[in-house]
């Protein structure tokens, strides 16, 4: 972000948001963790909270809306958290993609590109929590274009894939990994058939599922073996959008965690024209 002339300050004593938003009407307890984070933002004298994660974004943004919609709810949560100052409302939750698109602007990002991604075919994968429900999502729920535009500004070609807004299996990867494997085989299979060099995500759980279950599906050993024909043996590398962005902005490769990826993205990245 420094390279883009933008400063983000880490929230002191931040806590986990709970990862999933409660969809029930009577579960006030589930809003305590998000509201505690909003109290931290308030203490900093700030009004906006930026997150890198689609699940945090969804949970925090919806909780902010939920407590703002009804002063009585907020009062009860504040009363419960009697060790904390009262949250007064008004914190705005943003995903980093929104900051890049709406404040920094993709044009300004493009002007800072040092390693243009010419010739690289990148498949954006949005998943669920960044786009749904309407009124929370950062883009059209069925036809988003935020990541496509960003990657094009970085010099890459955005590959259109049919399952980019469909669920990867999410937390069912814990309860029923076979379900997640089935989803990932379909998502990655389509990206592979359309010639994607890389899949790029905006959610850490999508990243895990797409990498992990791709390997199981592709190595012919797991129960996903029947999908093996769709998935290349070596798989398609999965990167977080921030990794691809930082790479294009010229951040040294050693700082980008490529060596930790389950499927090494470096061979794909070196295929870019002039790479």
């Amino acid at each position: 972000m420094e390279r883009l002339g933008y400063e983000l300050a880490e929230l002191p004593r931040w806590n986990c948001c709970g990862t999933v938003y409660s969809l029930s009407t009577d579960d006030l307890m589930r809003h305590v963790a998000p509201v505690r984070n909003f109290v931290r933002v308030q203490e900093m004298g700030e009004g906006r909270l930026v997150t890198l994660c689609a699940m945090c974004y969804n949970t925090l943004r919806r909780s902010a809306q939920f407590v703002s919609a009804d002063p009585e709810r907020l009062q009860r949560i504040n009363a419960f958290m009697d060790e904390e100052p009262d949250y007064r409302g008004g914190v705005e939750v943003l995903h980093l993609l929104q900051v890049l698109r709406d404040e920094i602007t993709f044009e300004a990002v493009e002007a800072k590109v040092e390693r243009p991604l010419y010739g690289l075919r990148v498949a954006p994968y949005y998943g669920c929590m960044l786009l749904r429900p309407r009124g929370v999502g950062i883009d059209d729920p069925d036809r988003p274009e935020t990541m496509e535009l960003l990657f094009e500004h970085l010099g890459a070609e955005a590959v259109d894939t049919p399952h980019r807004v469909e669920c990867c299996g999410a937390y069912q990867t814990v309860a029923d990994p076979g379900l997640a494997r089935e989803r990932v085989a379909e998502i990655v299979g389509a990206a592979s058939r359309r010639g994607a060099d890389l899949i790029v995500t905006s959610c850490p759980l999508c990243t895990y599922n797409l990498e992990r279950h791709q390997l199981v599906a592709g190595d012919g050993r797991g129960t996903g073996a029947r999908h093996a024909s769709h998935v290349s043996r070596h798989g398609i590398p999965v990167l977080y959008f921030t990794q691809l962005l930082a790479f294009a902005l010229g951040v040294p490769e050693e700082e980008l965690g490529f060596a930790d990826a389950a499927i090494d993205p470096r061979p794909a990245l070196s295929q870019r024209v002039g790479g």
Partner: protein
Amino acid sequence: MADRIDSGTLRIPAREPDFVRRVEELSGEDVFACYQCGKCSAGCPFTSGMDLLPAEVLRLLQLGDGRVLGARSPWVCASCLACGVRCPKGVDIAKVMEALRLFALRRGETGLRLGDIPPGVPQIALVGATRKLTP
């Protein structure tokens, strides 16, 4: 019941058991708004693991059919919200699925046995799964 028919929504009079009302309370959704177009079922990425399609879940609720309470579908639902953004009647079906899970969870059932958790799953998935699938 008569006032409900006046409101323009067809209800099945006198046969609506308590669990339907409870599901509506927990979800905040009107299950009788559904007119069975099937868009939710068509777009759901998890139907391969479901015993009842999402539209069928809503239909059984409308009929007050208690078999919906033993269905596997709410436990297969991953709250991906694809159904809700496509519903032409504005029913947030994921909320109905959550209400059905809570109905069972608050009676001590569980959708996840801790011993079955595969090794190496990340925290974000563990927290999500335990919040959605355990009491």
